[in-house]
């Protein structure tokens, strides 16, 4: 009995039979998933497989129309979901930003801590120091005072990771953090993510459609197709060429550049 409850306690994410629907389009069809504390879970699959939707179910940005989800013991779709989001860091895909936006890199990193600070507390010296340390850790301290809209894709993603570090979450969600950036920047970012995992023993969910950008630290893989979990298991077993070819509908699994270090395949 004790053993069972300990195993359940260690599960920081539990999704049971989750269905997400965007008007006429059902993005997730009855997905069930459990993630243990400190686990590094990879989620791969072709475009439109429901990978991003699965991540947004975890932080409550997507609502289940059926099924249940609990993250860190809380239901993310209920009122007060914003309190849960302070504990779930989310790095979204690179988006174009208005180059004239009136916010600096240092300020946007500090936004990571705003949710945790609550309504009436202002960031103090300690918080600004943490934001500066996060920028240093991701290697863009020299960009601290640059406007956010004037960054390259790689710089933008590093800043997004620094923001999540400033947030100090218990769960990290990465949605194609290396998409549309050059191979060198991709490898640096992957190294950085794995370093954060080693350092913080944090739970991480990592989404990619490009197998060349799957981190080595990824222990378990979820293969998604047509809004369903198609296969799930240890990464070594899931990275079977025949399985991957079937996942990508008979096409060669996408690998956009030859991996060199810190990568899974």
């Amino acid at each position, binding site marked *: 009995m004790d053993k069972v409850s300990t195993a359940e306690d260690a599960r920081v994410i539990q999704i049971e039979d989750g269905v997400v629907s965007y008007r006429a389009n059902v993005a997730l069809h009855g997905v069930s998933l459990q993630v243990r504390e400190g686990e590094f879970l990879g989620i791969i699959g072709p475009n439109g497989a429901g990978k991003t939707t699965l991540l947004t179910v975890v932080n409550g940005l997507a609502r289940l129309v059926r099924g249940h989800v609990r993250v860190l013991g809380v239901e993310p779709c209920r009122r007060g979901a*914003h309190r849960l*989001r302070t504990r779930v860091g989310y790095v*979204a895909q690179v988006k174009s930003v208005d180059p*004239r936006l*009136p*916010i600096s890199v240092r300020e946007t990193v500090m*936004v990571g801590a705003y949710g945790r600070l609550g309504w009436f507390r202002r*960031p103090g010296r300690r918080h600004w120091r943490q934001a500066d340390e996060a920028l240093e850790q991701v290697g863009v301290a020299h960009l601290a005072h640059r406007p956010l809209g004037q960054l390259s894709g790689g710089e933008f993603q590093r800043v997004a990771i620094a923001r999540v570090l400033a*947030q100090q979450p218990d769960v990290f969600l990465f949605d194609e953090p290396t998409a549309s950036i050059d191979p060198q920047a991709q490898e640096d970012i992957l190294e950085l993510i794995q370093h954060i995992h080693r350092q913080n023993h944090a739970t991480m969910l990592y989404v990619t459609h490009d197998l060349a950008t799957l981190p080595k630290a990824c222990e378990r893989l979820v293969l998604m197709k047509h809004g369903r979990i198609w296969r799930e298991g240890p990464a070594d077993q899931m990275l079977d060429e025949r399985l991957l070819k079937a996942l990508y509908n008979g096409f060669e699994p996408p690998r956009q550049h030859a991996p060199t270090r810190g990568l899974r395949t």
Partner: protein
Amino acid sequence: MATDWITFQDQYQWLLNAAAAGFCAGVSCSLVGVFVVTMHLSFLGVCIAHAAFAGALMGVWLRFDPLIGALIFSLAATAVIGPMSERGDLSPDTSIGIVFSLMLGLAFLFLGLAPGSRTEALGFFWGSILTVTGQDLLFLSITALLVAGLLLLFYKEVQAVVCHREVALSVGIPVTLVFYGMLFATGATIAVSLRSIGGLLIYSLVLNPAAAAFQLTYSLKRMLVLAAFFGVLSCWAGLAGSYLWDLPAGACIVLTSAIVFALATAFSPKKRVKKWEPPPATD
């Protein structure tokens, strides 16, 4: 000395009132304008101004305080636009456009139904800052203080939502509450400033100073201060121009704000292109 001041006050009380109204309207309209401009919701100001206008005309028609009508209609318009654009069924532009056309229709309906002379009703088109009353001044100053105070208190939430709403949502900021708060502040500001500045001119005072400030800085704090400064400058310079050349005050205020915007755009550092220099020669 004291007698001189009293005589001056007696003679020019209307001008002092107008300057005070210009200060309050300039500050509050420009501050909410920063949110409207940065979030690319410029049409929102136009729509709320017409809603306030329709509400004021309803007040004239049914003989209750037009300010109350303006407040109810502008807040109701924001309460409709907010969920319509939030739900994503319609783009914000379309939802604002639909509410705008509805308000315009209602405004003309109430104008047609209003009894007697149309003078009071038409006054809401271009405003009457030179005949501003003590009650108007009280409401204007309370609104300016409220908008500035709320911004000071919730600056970090406003900054996060205005600059990147999705990020704000994902880090746990109650974005909907902050967004609706900003919409309501815009509605209240426009409604309260309607009588002084006028329904046709008010959105220029919301838009132009903030758009001018947007051209000049990458810091939201500086943008807020600059926008408020440009708002007050437009009002005071417009009033001075109106007094000196005997021109309509509302039109002068708006034209001044347009000139401020043109100058800010002409000297905007955001347009500057870094000078190219050849790389140093290597062996």
